[in-house]
């Protein structure tokens, strides 16, 4: 039973897909967004409401921060570490800077090289500027607070007007550009766009070509737009390749904005953001083709310095289109271009993915896969922050909070796309490698890899999710072989995988036993179940159901008997084993018949009301996770659905058993348990059971055939036992 909360969240996750045809959202909740040229803000992705606005996923914003820090270094001293400059320029607040200003009057020394340089060189003008800039920034930030209400003459306005006045007074000096930028920002916040545009017109000729000018010019473009000089603003945005602003000014009238920017500013820092967004956009053929066109031009023309990014884009697009070989070709071509560490790693992830889709499952590939997985596992371990674990645990708790929630398969789906390296490994293994191993009949490796994917980061509960879906569909003998390899590994890869998977003995004993019960290997089931302690059984999600007598005659109504729970499966397996032996070899036909009936009841119940003997969930519908696990015609898939098969066999065994009885009253007594009154009265009318039945049955309809059949929904084929149907039909 899936919890209402989970359904609600799943629906909310799916909703954006429906709402936004070209939405920034995978086609289903479990799918991992594999193509990355830049890190996404995965913490935001975790909050599903962010899906309404993909912009929040883009982690890296064009802010000229690095250039600005370098400029500060150039303006002060190249010996000052950038980190020290950043700590003061970007992380200190106005109050702290004011306190520094006070301390500069005394013989204060700082551990920050930037501050020391200012003090040593008596450059209080820098501190004064930074205080002004911080005050400006803090007020402007508070004006973006949703609680802010714009009031002229307010404190905010007074501070900004003061900033403007101070900036105006700074007419020459090394910080002219910086003061100009602060003034333009303050004017825009005061909504005096005309003053800002006018000021820009006057000052632009005096500014150096550096990061500050870039920031000021982009600010000027915003003001120009507001005062109706849209063409000039557009021209600035085009020069910088600021795609979002181009779109805003132009009203989306350019067909292929990406190409438009690429043509005019092939090294625009905004392009990477945009390409990443487009790569997240799944299933939009038109966009894919537009991006494909630009990427092809970029790698051909070599005008852009971001060649590695464009080759990766081509590989991703061809993979998306299903052309794996083309994808491999472009990925290989892009290998030789310089790239940042993040892109270097995502190149490797993409290569592993493409290998998995195309390689032959031989020893060479296994070795390659082993090396790749070792690298990826290391990457996952190094990158997993406490937040990642907290997220997983939070969802794990959340998904399993309801008493009626009998599985936790949703946990990884809910957190998909929140930790790229692990998500990527899961996608590679479940979507590509495991199916390949399955095709190659390397079932043990398939289980091992699924186990790694599921349990490397956190040990899952293990009765749901993709790994469980795979092992649940594989037969007992394959699972046993896997289990053997846990303790007798064939090679180093086995050992490595065993160390990282879920290898808890009790867990596997119970699974093996359950598979044995499902496949009627009762002796083997007994062997495994004797090793599973009661404490472990009590932790099973199905333990609470183990109150039903598995040899109950009634098919639907089971009395609650808590005492049955400890070693429930073991007692069942032992009883079935005993009945099996008796029905096959006992010399007394009545004992054989009785054992056969009990065996038939156990068999029927084990797939019906006592399903927890042969499964871990009443829900066998894996379609929900097949989004993540590919559809594979698992050979033993049918073992999941033995309900019809065993019910038919059970009926057949009961029929045989009744005919086996030589003691007619015992046969009648069994039929009475099975509620076949009509059959008793017709065929065993001379027995004490029939006499008793007649004496107690004071209503004709109790053995009226129509009523009896309708009410009892008899599973037994009593037709051949009954010879006088018409006699009992009501007229």
């Amino acid at each position, binding site marked *: 039973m899936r919890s209402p909360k989970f359904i609600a969240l799943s629906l909310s996750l799916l909703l954006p897909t429906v709402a936004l045809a070209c939405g920034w959202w995978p086609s289903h909740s479990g799918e991992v967004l594999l193509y990355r040229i830049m890190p996404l803000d995965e*913490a935001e992705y975790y909050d599903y409401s962010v899906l309404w606005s993909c912009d929040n996923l883009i982690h890296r914003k064009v802010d000229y921060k690095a250039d600005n820090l370098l400029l500060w270094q150039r303006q002060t001293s190249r010996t000052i570490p950038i980190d020290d400059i950043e700590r003061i320029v970007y992380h200190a607040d106005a109050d702290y800077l004011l306190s520094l200003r006070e301390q500069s009057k005394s013989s204060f020394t700082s551990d920050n090289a930037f501050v020391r340089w200012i003090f040593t060189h008596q450059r209080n003008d820098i501190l004064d500027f930074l205080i002004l800039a911080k005050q400006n920034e803090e007020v402007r930030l508070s004006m973006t607070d949703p609680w802010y209400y714009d009031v002229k003459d*307010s404190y905010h306005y007074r501070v900004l007007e003061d900033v403007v006045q101070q900036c105006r007074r700074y007419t020459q000096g090394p910080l002219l550009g910086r003061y100009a930028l602060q003034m333009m920002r303050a004017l825009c916040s005061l909504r005096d766009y005309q003053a800002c545009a006018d000021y820009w017109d006057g000052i632009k000729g005096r500014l150096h070509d550096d990061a500050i000018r870039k920031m000021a010019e982009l600010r000027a473009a915003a003001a120009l737009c507001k005062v109706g000089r849209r063409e000039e603003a557009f021209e600035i945005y085009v020069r910088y390749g600021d795609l979002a602003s181009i779109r805003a000014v132009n009203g989306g009238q350019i067909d292929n904005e990406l190409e438009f920017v690429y043509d005019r500013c092939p090294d625009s820092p905004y392009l990477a953001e945009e390409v990443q967004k487009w790569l997240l956009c799944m299933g939009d053929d038109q966009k894919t083709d537009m991006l494909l066109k630009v990427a092809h031009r970029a790698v051909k023309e070599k005008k852009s310095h971001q060649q590695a990014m464009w080759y990766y884009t081509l590989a991703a697009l061809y993979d998306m289109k299903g052309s794996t070989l083309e994808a491999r070709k472009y990925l290989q071509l892009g290998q030789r271009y310089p790239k940042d560490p993040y892109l270097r790693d995502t190149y490797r992830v993409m290569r592993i993915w493409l290998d998995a889709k195309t390689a032959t499952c031989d020893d060479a590939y296994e070795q390659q896969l082993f090396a790749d997985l070792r690298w990826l596992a290391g990457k996952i371990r190094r990158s997993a922050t406490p937040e990642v674990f907290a997220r997983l645990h939070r969802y794990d708790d959340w998904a399993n909070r309801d008493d009626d929630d009998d599985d936790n398969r949703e946990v990884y789906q809910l957190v998909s796309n929140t930790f790229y390296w692990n998500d990527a490994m899961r996608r590679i293994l479940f979507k590509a490698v495991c199916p390949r191993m399955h095709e190659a009949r390397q079932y043990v490796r398939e289980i091992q890899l699924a186990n790694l994917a599921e349990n490397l980061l956190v040990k899952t509960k293990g009765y749901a999710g993709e790994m469980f879906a795979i092992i649940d569909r594989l037969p007992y003998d394959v699972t046993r072989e896997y289990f053997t390899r846990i303790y007798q590994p064939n090679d180093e890869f086995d050992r490595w995988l065993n160390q990282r998977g879920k290898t808890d003995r009790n867990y596997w004993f119970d699974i093996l036993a359950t598979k044995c019960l499902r496949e009627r290997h009762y002796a083997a089931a007994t062997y495994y179940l004797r090793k599973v302690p009661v404490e472990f059984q009590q932790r099973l999600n199905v333990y609470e159901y183990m109150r039903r007598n598995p040899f109950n005659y009634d098919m639907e109504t089971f009395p609650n008997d808590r005492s049955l729970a400890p070693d429930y499966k073991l007692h069942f397996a032992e009883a079935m084993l005993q009945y099996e032996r008796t029905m096959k070899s006992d010399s007394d036909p009545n004992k054989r018949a009785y054992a056969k009936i009990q065996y038939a009841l156990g068999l029927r119940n084990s797939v019906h009301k006592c399903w927890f003997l042969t499964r871990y969930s009443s829900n066998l519908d894996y379609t929900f996770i097949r989004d993540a696990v590919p559809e594979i015609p698992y050979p033993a898939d049918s073992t999941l659905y033995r309900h019809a098969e065993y019910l038919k066999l059970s009926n057949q065994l009961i029929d045989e058993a009744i005919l086996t009885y030589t003691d007619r009253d015992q046969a009648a007594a069994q039929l009475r348990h099975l509620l076949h009154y009509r059959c008793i009265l017709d065929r065993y009318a001379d027995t004490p059971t029939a006499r008793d039945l007649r004496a107690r049955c004071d209503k004709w309809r109790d053995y009226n055939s129509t009523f009896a059949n309708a009410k009892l929904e008899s599973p037994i084929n009593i037709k051949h036992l009954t010879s006088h149907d018409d006699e009992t039909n009501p007229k």
Partner: protein
Amino acid sequence: MKKVLSLLAALCSMLTLVSCSDGGRGGKDTSSHFVHQPANAVYHWKTVYNPNAFEKEFLKKHHIGRLYLKFFDVGVDNLYDGKGEQPVPIATTIFRDSIKHIGDVEVVPVVFITVEALRLDVPNYSLAERIIERVDAMCWANHIAYREVQLDCDWTRETKPLFFELCQEVRRLLHEKQKGLSATIRLHQLRDTLPDIDYGVLMLYNTESLVNPDVKNSILSSNVVKEYMRHVEADKHLDFAFPTYEWTLWFKDRKFMGILRPGQDTNVEGTLRHETSDFSEIIAAKHAIRPLLKDIGYPSSTIIYHLDSANLSRYTDHEISEIYRP
């Protein structure tokens, strides 16, 4: 002797008016000079303040002394600033006309608090301070000299402690400024203790569920009001708000589909239920509450919901006067 009695009566009346500022049970003793005066009043519940000639004339003609003007709602939003979901003001009223144009009418800023915002547990966050600061800013910007703030919230037993805590804090802050706090009270809320406020406004509308296909008129039923009156015992002063609006509700297969605007009710598949605020029902409801709730501490006032010419024009001046009659 008569003179002495009259003097005593007048003195008692004055004391009552002054003491109403802290009539709540269990509220903190926050001294205040806030005095709630009886007056004809009306709600303004639109997102744009721009009263037309009829509405301005209505204020004059019916001697409206107080306008309860909804300033904004407090909802919930994620601002992607790393703080997750937080309370934010939404649907802020835009002032297209100056408040000066309605003369001496006292404006009471009303803030609607959603229960989602109440439920948010944001550390180091004073919702009360935020609300008061924003009301101050809006009043300053729009030249409104306010004397009290009203909070409107559909609190239930579950959210009651949260709302009460908010009221306590808002009231404390307002009393520091010599201002008062009132709150809307729904009929079902009357069964409970009332929050820490200077007085309440009992909303005598939406008396039944509008989504229930079996209800005859969800806006106001004096019989339903009477039913509620059997279980109430208010210990705080209450003013009374009566509806003057109407709407058409759309049902399909007994399922509520929505509220239709005038003109929308053609070509709709299903059943339509047109509901009005019937004058006789308003008067009957007034009579139903009178014996138990009227004039607790000092005279109760009547408030009409809401200032909208399209609806108000359906009533005669006499009827409006009757609604306001003490």
